[in-house]
């Protein structure tokens, strides 16, 4: 790969001493050396040793978490009783008088949880902001007079809050500056709305330019862009598979993938998160036994995975999945929403992260929201796949196409990332993100927090477990002018509430140090340092962080 700036290293195999014999990864990845490579201990070695941890908390933590929820449930029932018998005013939704004898609408656990537990700590979510979501942003201050049933704005603004929650991996989301001049020109020339769908009159030359650029960036034959990232998944999976096909989907897949799979009408089977043995077992069963009653062969088997899972911070084990797919003749669909632009030596996603050939993956999907400061999604792959989608996707027939200034922002970002604007700014940003990620994760581990996920993933979930601590954590951090996203029950398992940090290339070392200091103090105040593998704090950091696991 071209190396314009002196000293900027872009060889993805920097950390692998033992793989020197394989040479550089450019161009010759089709060798499939990953399974034949050095079969020591009977296990195949891969280019990048995967360092992932999902440490379990001590037992007393889980006991207290469940006790806390039990107390919340008791009080929830008590308050429901008071509300039902009219002793207390009911602010939640209830059925009308005439419908009281019908099937009850609000008695299931999710509604109960929302009414009684979520409502008490609701002020930590949906906080409105009033500036661009750069590394620092402004939050509108709001208070509640009736314990979070209603809010009102005081009119004050909390300025310069450090942003650890927005998906801004490469720092492309920010206020207007001179480098965004082309976006302004396109806005002046094309306006804002397209007023049509792709198949009618909504295909602009900007879209063609963008699609060619995306295909070149990802090193595939062709690509197609859509106006909305969620709709890219949910509207295109039904076009690719249908009845009589089998979808093998990861346990923790995003809602858009689940919705697309359900809409398609294919049979869906779930395999445990990142668990290759489970996936192989399901594949073998599918190939041997075929469809449920008739035992005919499945028309297509599609494996749905994500590049980085946003709640766990784990990265998909791509080489093993590709090996399985080749062996059992299945198709692979990767959703790189969080990993495009964020991992890989030059920001080209998980395929580059593992040093593999993009032709190994059948359908590459991603979004432009996270790393490119824009909105929309793409699907890339072989030319006949993309041509088929242009004709048969619901999105191209019915959905309005991407707005021109948005397309120009993506074009500009990709050009910066590829170095086509003549500077090495893109590459520097990717490396800055990698450095920030490693530093942040290492310091959190040293402090003794339990952090899930892969060492190189910029999405950092920090486990909090107890609902009382979740609320206290978010409130304390906002008081110290740091904005984080905390996640609780429906999005994560009941006992594993967490705070999710999104590291950005635009964060300076001082920003990260401020956040880490605040986390240190808060960890002591709230007793959050549950990890039993605490390392001694070292005076300096090493450059390499992937330790060679000999197993």
């Amino acid at each position: 790969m071209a190396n314009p700036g002196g000293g900027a290293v872009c060889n993805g195999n920097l950390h692998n001493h033992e793989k020197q014999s394989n040479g550089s990864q450019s161009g010759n990845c089709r060798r499939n050396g990953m399974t034949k490579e050095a079969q020591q201990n009977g296990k195949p070695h891969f280019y990048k040793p995967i360092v992932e941890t999902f440490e379990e908390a001590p037992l007393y933590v889980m006991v207290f978490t469940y006790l806390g929820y039990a107390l919340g449930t008791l009080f929830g029932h008590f308050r429901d009783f008071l509300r039902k018998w009219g002793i207390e005013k009911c602010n939640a939704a209830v059925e009308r008088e005439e419908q009281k004898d019908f099937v009850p609408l609000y008695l299931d656990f999710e509604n109960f949880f929302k009414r009684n537990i979520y409502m008490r700590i609701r002020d930590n979510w949906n906080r409105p902001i009033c500036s661009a979501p750069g590394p620092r942003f402004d939050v509108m201050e709001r208070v509640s007079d009736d314990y979070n049933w209603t809010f009102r704005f005081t009119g004050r603004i909390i300025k310069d809050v450090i942003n650890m929650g927005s998906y801004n991996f490469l720092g492309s989301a920010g206020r207007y500056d001179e480098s965004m001049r082309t976006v302004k020109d396109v806005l002046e020339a094309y306006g804002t709305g397209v007023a049509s769908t792709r198949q009618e009159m909504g295909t602009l030359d900007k879209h063609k330019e963008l699609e060619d650029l995306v295909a070149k960036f990802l090193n595939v034959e062709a690509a197609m862009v859509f106006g909305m990232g969620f709709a890219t998944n949910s509207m295109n999976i039904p076009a690719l598979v249908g009845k009589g096909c089998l979808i093998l989907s990861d346990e923790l897949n995003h809602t858009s993938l689940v919705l697309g799979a359900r809409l398609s009408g294919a049979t869906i089977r779930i395999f445990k998160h990142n668990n290759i043995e489970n996936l192989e077992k399901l594949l073998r069963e599918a190939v041997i036994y075929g469809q449920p009653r008739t035992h005919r062969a499945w028309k297509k088997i599609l494996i749905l995975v994500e590049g980085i899972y946003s709640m766990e911070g784990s990265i998909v084990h791509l080489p093993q999945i590709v090996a399985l797919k080749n062996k059992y003749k299945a198709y692979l669909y990767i959703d790189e929403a969080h990993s495009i632009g964020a991992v890989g030596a030059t920001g080209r996603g998980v395929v580059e992260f593992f040093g593999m050939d993009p032709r190994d993956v059948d359908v590459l999907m991603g979004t432009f929201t996270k790393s490119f400061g824009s909105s929309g999604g793409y699907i890339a792959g072989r030319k006949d796949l993309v041509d088929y989608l242009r004709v048969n996707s619901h999105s191209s027939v019915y959905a309005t196409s991407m707005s021109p200034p948005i397309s120009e922002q993506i074009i500009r970002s990709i050009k910066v990332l590829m170095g086509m604007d003549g500077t090495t700014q893109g590459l520097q940003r990717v490396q800055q993100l990698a450095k920030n990620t490693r530093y942040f994760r290492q310091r959190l581990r040293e402090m003794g927090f339990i952090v899930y996920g892969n060492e190189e993933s910029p999405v950092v979930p920090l486990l909090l477990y107890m609902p009382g601590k979740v609320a206290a954590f978010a409130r304390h951090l906002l008081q110290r002018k740091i904005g984080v996203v905390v996640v609780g029950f429906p999005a994560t398992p009941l006992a594993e509430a967490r705070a999710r940090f999104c590291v950005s290339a635009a964060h300076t070392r001082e920003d990260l140090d401020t956040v880490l200091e605040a986390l240190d103090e808060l960890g002591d105040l709230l007793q959050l340092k549950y990890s039993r593998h605490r390392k001694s704090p070292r005076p300096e950091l090493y450059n390499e962080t992937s330790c060679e696991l000999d197993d």
Partner: protein
Amino acid sequence: MDFRRVKEYFSWIYYQYQIISCCAVLEPWEQSMFNTILLTIFAMVVYTAYVFIPIHIRLAWEFFSKICGLHSTISN
């Protein structure tokens, strides 16, 4: 000075108790109610222990010593 440290320590312990058991997210009247119930149960446990445990231990001691004593007289 020492008294202030002790007070801070107790308020820290109370805060830990509140966030661990979700009292921090309850409304103030619910917190008082729960604290009252918990203190009542705790007081009852302490009273029962104070009144009954010495007597139970003494009875158990006599019971076991009688068995061991009986055993030693038989084996004699």
